[in-house]
Structures are given as structure tokens and as C-alpha cells.
């Protein structure tokens, strides 16, 4: 039987983060994952709150907000921790709670975020003369014309130069950004030559799809040393290399520090003794397996991750521990008539309510189990996508739960 101090269920941003924090505390950690996790879907940028000054906004949130329960010190510590882990994996992140950093989306909008990979930092775009937008023949999902049309609205004085590189990617199956990133990581010569051919100066910037490798910053460093201008990666449709890099950086940290990661581990239930969980059981077509531990962290996500499911109206549930799930009743409150509304979507607030130790609570606010913690998108009460707090909630709740 495998002995663990901490078992983390879920391999998304929250789960991996919690495992990394626990590992740093010298605990024996087991991560049980099923599916690809949330990171390939995401841009790798970690949003904290939709405000110019996230720290002030978060400080002023009401008592019931998950951030309030997590507390500002843990939120700040989580940022520093993530920066440290990513820096060690040669994937430097930048930013803090006091301001927001712009990144360029694949559509050509600017998006503001708190904690981002250095390769996406678009802060200097306002000061450059020339902006090259590089398309690569054969890459699907990157359309320089649309990007330029939209980005012009922010930087009307800049001189935009859309260009297309031919890196001999055509002729086989469809190539997405992940494929191209891998190909360029394997052989960057042609790409570097084309970039050099732009003759960009230190006063220019070059916007590219996220193709600078799939693991860390090494491709970017190689490319950058041969250029004078800044190189900025955009977001893209999933799977996003920028998100995958973060997933790999966190996973590598876990592996290097002795954590065990079990993939395809479909956890279907927990074993309870009084007010403690003693273990969880995984199940596949051939066998069941019992995993005991001292502490459990549930990071199976919301509706996307499958941590919360709802087969029939008004009957949401949490499939592993059958924890109480709070949700908003009534069709008119479940969703807004407009998809992009200036108010949160009711359904997206569905989830588990937690105390300040991230433990699931009952209707009286009392913790249900001493040693079970619920983090990330499993937590209910707010529409994190609308608040633009999904990533921030993930890493800060993970940090809090792992340091209890």
C-alpha cells in the first residue's frame, strides 16, 4: 500500500499547484489525475481579478467571497511561490497583485492579467514604432489580418506590418500551435532566419503565435539573443503551448521532488471514518485500488473538469465524496439571456462552499471533514470566469489548502 501524507485529486492548475506546495513542505504527495487537466485549455496567464488594481479590489471583497476566506497573505504567497517554481523550471513568470499586465490575444484584443509568462508580456507595445505580426504558413488558428485589425484600435499610431513566414510546415495533416511549437523547438534555424530577415530594431516589437517550444523558455532565449526587437507570444485556441508549458513546469517540479503522479486514476469514492477521510478508491475496468493518506485535497474542477456534474435540472452533485453543492435555483437565474453579459452567469457559481481552511462546510458553516480540502473551480459561490479570477482562485486556494 502506498503511503502518502497528502493526496491531491485532480491535475489542473489548482491540483498541481497544491501538490507543488505540499512537496516544498517535504510531504509525501500523491497526485491522482484523470484527463488532461485545465491547463492546455488555458493561456498560461493567471488572472486574479477584473480590476486595474487587483489587490485593492480583492481587499474590499465581502466576507462570503472565496478570496476573503483564503486571505490576502496566502494569495500573495501563492504568487511568489508560483514565480519561484516556474523560474526554477526556466519558465519565468512576471507580475504581482498591484497592477495588471496586457497580453495580446489571438483575436487581437488586449487582455489584462496579473501573473503571466514573460514571453507574453505586451507592456511595451505602446512605446514601439513598428509592430510586426508574424503569421506562419500552414498554422491554423492564427490569422494576422484579424489580429492587426483589432490591435490597431489600441495602438493607432503604430506602424503595423503583417508578414507571413514559410517554415515548410505544409503538406501533411493540420498544424496547430502546439505542433508548430514542437517543430520549432526541434529545429529553430529557419524560424530564426526569417525573424532576422525582418531587420527589426530595438524600437520595434514582433508579435508571433505561441510557438516558442512546448516545455520552457529555452527556445525563446535562443531566438531572442539573435534579435534586437522584443518578441511577444499571443494566446491561441486550445491546446495552447503557453498553458502546456506551465503544466509541464509544475509537473517537472513534482517529479524532481519525489511526488507520485498517477494518470488515468479515476477516483470514484472516499472512505470515511467519523469526520475524517481515511482514503480514496480508484476504479478502472479491472480493479479497484485504495489510497490512504493523512490529508486530501479535492481539485477536480467545476463543470468543465467534471468535479461538479448535473444530469438533471436543479440536481448538481459532487461525484466523489457527495459533498453538498450550492447552486442558484430557477431557470431565470441559472443563466443570463446574453452570453457576454455585464453580470455573472448563475450556473457558473455552482460549487462547494468552504471555510477559511478550504474545508467543505455544511449548511451551518461547520466543516464536514477535518482533513478534506476543496480548491480551485470546485469552489462555488462566484462566477470566476466573469470575475476573471479563475487562475487566481486556483493557485491561492491551493496554496492555502496545502499550507494548513
Amino acid at each position, binding site marked *: 500500500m502506498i503511503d502518502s501524507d497528502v493526496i491531491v485529486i485532480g491535475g489542473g492548475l489548482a491540483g498541481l499547484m497544491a501538490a507543488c506546495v505540499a512537496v516544498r513542505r517535504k510531504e509525501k504527495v500523491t497526485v491522482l489525475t484523470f484527463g488532461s487537466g*485545465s491547463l492546455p*485549455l*488555458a*493561456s498560461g496567464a493567471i*488572472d486574479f481579478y*477584473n*480590476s*486595474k488594481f487587483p489587490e485593492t479590489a480583492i481587499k474590499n471583497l465581502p466576507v462570503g467571497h472565496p478570496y476573503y476566506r483564503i486571505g490576502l497573505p496566502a494569495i500573495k504567497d501563492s504568487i511568489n511561490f508560483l514565480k519561484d517554481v516556474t523560474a526554477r523550471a526556466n519558465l519565468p513568470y512576471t507580475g504581482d497583485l498591484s497592477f*495588471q499586465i496586457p497580453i495580446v*490575444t*489571438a*483575436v*487581437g*484584443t*488586449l*487582455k*489584462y492579467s496579473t501573473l503571466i509568462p514573460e514571453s507574453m508580456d505586451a507592456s511595451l507595445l505602446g512605446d514601439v514604432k513598428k509592430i510586426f505580426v508574424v503569421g506562419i*504558413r*500552414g498554422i*491554423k*488558428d492564427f*490569422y494576422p*489580418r*484579424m489580429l492587426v*485589425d*483589432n490591435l490597431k484600435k489600441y495602438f493607432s499610431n503604430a506602424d503595423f506590418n503583417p508578414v507571413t513566414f514559410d517554415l515548410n510546415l*505544409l*503538406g501533411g495533416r*493540420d*498544424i496547430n500551435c502546439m505542433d508548430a511549437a514542437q517543430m520549432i523547438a526541434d529545429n529553430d534555424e529557419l524560424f530564426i532566419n526569417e525573424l532576422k530577415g525582418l531587420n527589426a530594431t530595438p524600437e520595434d516589437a514582433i508579435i508571433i503565435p505561441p510557438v516558442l517550444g512546448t516545455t520552457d523558455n529555452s527556445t525563446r532565449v535562443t531566438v531572442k539573443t539573435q534579435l534586437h526587437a522584443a518578441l511577444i507570444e499571443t*494566446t*491561441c*485556441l*486550445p491546446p*495552447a503551448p503557453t498553458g502546456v508549458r506551465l503544466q509541464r513546469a509544475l509537473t517537472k517540479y513534482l517529479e524532481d521532488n519525489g511526488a507520485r503522479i498517477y494518470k488515468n486514476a479515476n477516483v470514484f469514492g472516499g472512505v470515511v471514518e467519523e469526520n475524517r477521510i481515511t482514503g480514496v478508491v480508484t476504479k478502472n475496468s479491472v480493479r479497484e485500488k485504495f489510497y490512504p493518506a493523512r490529508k486530501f485535497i479535492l481539485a477536480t474542477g*467545476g*463543470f*468543465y473538469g*467534471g468535479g461538479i*456534474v*448535473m*444530469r*438533471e*435540472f436543479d440536481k448538481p452533485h459532487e461525484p466523489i465524496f457527495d459533498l453538498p453543492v450550492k447552486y442558484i435555483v430557477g*431557470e431565470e437565474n*441559472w*443563466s443570463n*439571456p*446574453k*452570453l*457576454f453579459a455585464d453580470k455573472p*452567469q448563475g*450556473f*457558473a457559481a455552482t460549487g462547494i462552499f468552504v471555510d477559511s481552511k478550504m474545508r467543505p462546510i455544511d449548511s451551518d458553516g461547520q466543516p464536514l471533514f477535518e482533513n478534506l480540502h476543496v480548491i480551485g473551480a470546485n469552489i462555488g459561490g462566484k462566477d470566476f*470566469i*466573469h470575475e*476573471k479570477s*479563475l487562475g487566481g482562485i486556483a493557485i491561492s486556494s491551493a496554496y492555502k489548502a496545502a499550507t494548513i
Partner: protein
Amino acid sequence: MEKYTVVIIGGGATGLGILRDLAMRGVKALLVEKKDLVNGASSRYHGLLHSGGRYVVKDRDAAKECITENQIMRRIGKSCVEPCGGMFTRLDIDDEDYEEQWVKGCNETGIDITPITIDEAINLEPRLNRKRLRSVYLIPDAAIDGFRMAWQLVDSAKRYGGEFRTYTEFVGLDQVNGELHGVMVRNQFTGEIYEIGCDIAVNAAGGWAGFVGERAGLKIGVQPDKGTLIAFNQRIVSHVVNRLHKSSDGDIFVPHGSITILGTSSISIPNPEDTSTSREEVESLIKIGEQTFENLRDFRILRAFAGARPLYIPEGGELGRNASRGFAILDHETDGLKGFFTIVGGKFTTFRLMAEKICDQICAKLDVQEPCRTAEVPIVEEVPQAEKERAKKFFPSYGVELAAERLGVEKFRRVVARMESDPESRELVCECENITRAEVEEIAKESTTYSVDDLRRRTRIGMGTCQGNFCTFRGTAVLNEMCEQSKDKDTLTHMRKFLQGRWKGIRPVLIGRTLREMQIKRAIYELSMNVTGGEPK
């Protein structure tokens, strides 16, 4: 002033059928539609090519029309019809006497039915609820694609000189002393109102026929009747499965490609624009559907949608399920307006027949001797097998078949040529429905494409499993690059509008795996792409 012999108002199946019919008889005709083609009941329905079985007990004439047209449509509209066959199933809760009347009705109407055993039925449709099943008959129902039919009718009409204008709304008639001179229309983009001269105008506006009538100063007995439907993401059935009972809500399942449509309800509504659907309507359809397929809730619902049947209710006539599904042609010369016709009622299955009947009347007025040929001449020429084989070099082979059926031979050739010359255009814009960039580009540059939604109706992007998660981005970008007349050049607006259209159908079914898909959509467009736009607050 420009001048046509006939102007047709309404770009649904009936109007398009009339356009093609007139064009084939050499009559100079123009169709005007206030939105895009087939945005009303011609696409907002089951996609069922009726055998007539549904009507044999109540309305023999309608049933006879159905079986005749069913056979014609299989010949002339091959690439729009999926000849999957149908099944009528009586459950334990259904009236036995009705079955007897129904069998008699089918026999007397000439609808070929074959009784099969419960075991045979389960063998053909394994998901049927065996415990409830009492008797089963096979019947020649089929599935038909309303969108595809529309574009192919247009292509066909164009070949004979027929013309059409979308986003062109009828606003009134130009008449002098009861004699028609022309129709007044408004360009929906510029707001400009102008006149198109004509000898005859036809009101084929379906659920909107009453509104068109009002604008012409006439009162027309049309009652929009809302039918709500659910699209499931799987092929739950491989035949059309009907309940063998008195026609009611939620009793027909129709397979289409990789999806299944369940419907419908029947609710009288004042405004045909009302295509809203509610959780309650969805629940009620599922509850009835579960009687036939007990595990129905295990299947992911893609969306709910609704359309307004244009029921013809003469003064004192009955509403709802009791209203006739037959059609009527009104020559308003009897109302003192010479040259104005209305066609109302009917159903998709019989649109060709409706067109033939009214065109006979119009041609008689115009003294045109050409007979109707729409029942004999195929709507589009099929893509020869050799060309399909050649195209497999660039397409996934499943995609070749789909594209060949969607496009017809002429467009198919253009798409293949594009792929041949530009390898980049071979990539898939929509993985769900196997639609290549070449096809989307080809359609985007057509003069009647203005929005991503127009692209959707012509290509099916955004209609598959992911409901636009990926192809909204790609489709918008292609539109931005290829479509000169797109009035609204802002790509963010295009994306928001399109995703809002998808959202409308998703909202009432926001349960199960649909919730998961929705969160993916929001993560992509709200978080990764920030299409909501703007700076942080």
C-alpha cells in the same frame, strides 16, 4: 425602375420552390427575403420527409400528398435526403383502436407499411424501450436537410435565370386602382427603400404571411404555431421513430448525420419571430421521449430550437393540432387586388407541390404554356464518383462525401480547385462537421454572405458537437479575409453575435455535458480571447 414578371416574398422552402419552378418555365422572377434564406420554419423543424403516416387517420389528402412528394424528393433531391426509413411504434400506453384505424388508413392511402416483431424492432433500434413496446411497423419516412435543400434550390433556380436578394424586406405594394405595379422593399443594411416593378407578387412568407398581408392591406388567416425541438449530439436512432398514436407533442425522433432531433410542441403564438424555448418545454419533450427511449437523458443535448408553422386558419377554423396541415392558395383578385397571391399552410415535405400549384395559376394568368418540370429534373447534378476519388487527396474521405452532398457539383469543383492550388486551404475550419477552409472561403466570398451566421447556414460551421467553440474564431477570421460586402467589419461584433446565436439554443438545455462545453466556450472567448473586450474596471 428594375422590372420582373414575378416577385416572390419569402425565402423559405415554398418561396424557393416557386422561384425554381418559375425560372424553369422561363418566367423572369426575383425572390426577396428580409433576413437570410431559410431562417424560419424551413430550417426550424424536424428535418422529416414525411411518408404521410402521421396524417392517414385525420387528413387523408395531406397523407396522399406526402407519400407522392416523398417519392419525388428522393429522386430530385438525392443529396438532401437521407433514406433512413421510418418506424411507427405503439407503446403500452397508446390506444389499440388507433392502430387499427392507422393500418387501414395507410393501406387505403397507398403508404407501404410492414409490421415487424418486437425482436426485429429492437434489433434495428436497440435503444427502444422493450418493456413498453407493443407493435411496430416500418414505413418509408426519411430525413431531409432543409438548409442544404435551400441552397441547392437557389443554385438550380440561378441556372435557369432566377434571382434572389436576401436582407431585403417587403414593406408594401405599389398599386393603382387595384392593379399591381410593383413591390416596395427595404435594404436592411442601408435602410434604403426602393421599388421593384412586377406584374405579379407572391406572398410566400410562411408564418409571416399575415404581416405581409397587412402591409398589402389584406387580412390573411395565418396562425403562427410554435414547435419546439431538441437536437441531441448522438445518432440515438437510425430510423425516423414515430409514436403510433394520435399526433401529439414530442413523439418523433429523426436522425440527421451524427445527431438526432426530437420534437415537437404545438403552441399558437402571436409573433412568428418568437423562437424562444424554455426549460419547461425541453423537460416536457424529454419526459415524453423517455417513454420510447428510457435512457434518453444519457445523451448530450446540443441545443433546443423552435420554429413557427404557418397554419392556415380560414375564418372559424380550428387551431393547434386540430388545424389542417394542408395548404391554400389565395388569389387576391377576389379581394380587389389584381396580381397579388398568397400561399399559406402546408409543410416542408410538400413544398414542391405547393410551388407547382401556385405556379400553374400564375402561368395561366401570364399566358405561359410551359408545363411544370420540377418533379422530374434533379435539383443539383451529383458529383461524379471519379471526382470524389480525386478530391480524397486533399480531404478526409468522410469529409469528401459530406462536402459533395452539401455543395453539388459546381461548387464542389471550385472548392477542390482551391484546395489543389492552395494547400493551406485544406485545413479543417470545423472538425465536428468536416468543413475545410476552402469551402468556408468559397462561401464567404459569395455575394449573399454577410455574417458568420450566413456561413453557418451554408456550410454547417458551428452546428456540430462543439457548437462554435473553435469555428467561431476561424469562421470570423475567414469572413474577415474573404467577404468584401460584410457590412459590419468588426470581427469582435461578428464573434459575439454568432456566439450569442449559439447561446440562445444552449440556454434552455444547460445541463449535463452541455455545461462542460459551455465552460470551454467561456474559457476560450471570455478568458483567452477577451472578446468581451475592454480594459479592466
